[in-house]
């Protein structure tokens, strides 16, 4: 199966997956700690509206995804800050409307839209080099943000009200965080697709939470777990395809591996805890 590494397309897919794991680990940690998984799901589906518009208007679908994702992030973030309570309904609306717009736009687009499915379920095996550069730049930016703003971000995610009273620029930081979530979501669409982004943002971080306390250590572990799942998913789907001709998309494979790992982690943690307390 290591023969896969001889192919350039596979090397690129692996590099892309590992770069995406970094963004996913950092942002996913915030998403899990702030309990805003539904926002990330909403942003992914909002981005799909931009993908459809890209087809219709003839610009790169991913640029549309980025624009729709960012605008939705700012909108949801502003509403969240203003109302200071759950935004279930609004998020569900953004989620569904984004999806509906994407489908309507794409159906109106001239010609065939063959790779619409690949946006829904991911298609990491054929990434353009621009994607690699974009993801690498996002990783660098995320690392810079975490390096410079770790404490204030931690405070805002943990306790918005106290942070505001203490003088932390809560609104700016929260919108920055949501904006970065939107960009990460768009990057992950390539890896696992719109529908499964929410899983790749939450499962590795949730596994990390089983074993470490502290956002910083969670980010490292979530990145590692995400990287392992993406790598294993790539090899498995390539292997199945090359050996027995079974073509299973990589994205769902990655998510199923991550979910299995989560189950295993839960059980092991449960047993470990059980032994500690007599």
């Amino acid at each position, binding site marked *: 199966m290591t023969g896969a590494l001889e192919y350039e397309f596979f090397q690129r897919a692996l590099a892309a997956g590992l770069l995406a794991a970094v963004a996913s680990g950092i942002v996913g940690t915030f998403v899990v*700690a702030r*309990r805003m998984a539904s926002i990330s799901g909403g942003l992914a589906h909002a981005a799909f509206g931009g993908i459809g518009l890209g087809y219709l208007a003839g610009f790169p679908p991913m640029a549309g995804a980025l624009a729709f994702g960012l605008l939705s992030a700012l909108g949801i973030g502003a509403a969240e800050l203003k109302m200071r309570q759950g935004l279930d309904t609004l998020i569900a609306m953004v989620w569904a409307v984004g999806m509906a717009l994407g489908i309507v736009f794409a159906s109106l687009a001239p010609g065939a839209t063959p790779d619409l499915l690949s946006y829904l379920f991911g298609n990491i095996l054929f990434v353009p080099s621009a994607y690699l550069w974009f993801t690498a730049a996002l990783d660098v930016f995320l690392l810079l943000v975490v390096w410079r703003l770790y*404490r*204030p971000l*931690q*405070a805002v995610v*943990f*306790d918005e*009200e*106290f*942070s*505001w*009273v*203490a*003088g*932390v620029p809560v609104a700016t930081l929260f919108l920055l965080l949501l904006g970065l979530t939107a960009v990460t979501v768009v990057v992950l669409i390539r890896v696992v697709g719109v529908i499964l982004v929410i899983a790749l943002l939450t499962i590795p971080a949730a596994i990390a*939470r089983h074993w*470490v*306390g*502290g*956002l910083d250590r*969670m980010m490292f572990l979530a990145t590692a777990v995400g990287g392992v799942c993406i790598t294993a998913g790539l090899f498995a789907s390539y292997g199945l395809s090359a050996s027995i001709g079974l073509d299973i998309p990589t994205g769902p494979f990655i998510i199923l591996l991550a979910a299995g790992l989560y189950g295993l982690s839960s059980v092991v943690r449960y047993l470990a805890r059980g032994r500690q307390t007599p």
Partner: protein
Amino acid sequence: MSTPPVLLEGVSYAYGRAPALDSVDLRIDEGDFLGIIGPNAGGKTTLLKIILGLLSPDRGTVQVFGRPPSESRGLIGYVPQYARFDAAFPIDVLDTVRMGRLGLGRQESADEASEAARDALDQVDLGDLADEQIGQLSGGQLQRVLIARALASEPRILLLDEPTASVDTRIGRSVYELLEQLSDRLSIVLVSHDIGVISRYVKTVACLNVQLHYHHSRELTEEMVELAYGCPVDLVAHGHPHRVLPAHGAEPA
């Protein structure tokens, strides 16, 4: 003493049509240790949030050290209800307390911030729990951590929301004893529905049930309580070192 730490004039606030505060006047001076009691949904948390600037009043003015709350951020140490915290949040005690050092324009190294946070933890006697996850703490310990976080910001006034709600009485008492010590060097305002314990430690008591009844005294008259709760409340004041109620005429043994 020229500008009081907190000055509210004619403050009203409503959630939709339901009034939470009606024409509240309140002046808190340096050195005050005020307990505000009142029934649930009587506007206690709303009042705190208006002083903090988290809510803006529909009518009336709020001044904190002579300025609007949004311009005096960092001067108030806020201790929220610990019960609303997500105990599963991945953060340890020291990092939680360090949040108090994040105020506007405070330039200090990471070591200095940690040092200040450890000092604050020592003040609440939790120095040896610095590395614990907050999820591992008891209610009373978490309450003290949140007080330490507020103290770390070197506030000039401390505002506490239900500091002993659902803490057992023994721990509740130790939290109040800590506040009593702190009241020597800080103004303190706390809100609670816990009449008995609150009135034992604070210097003055006010009653809040949409309207505020406050006479800058420690004595809680039956009239105040009745106004606040809307019905006579049987206050058991026996055995307290200070009576908070005037002696009844004919009290059953």
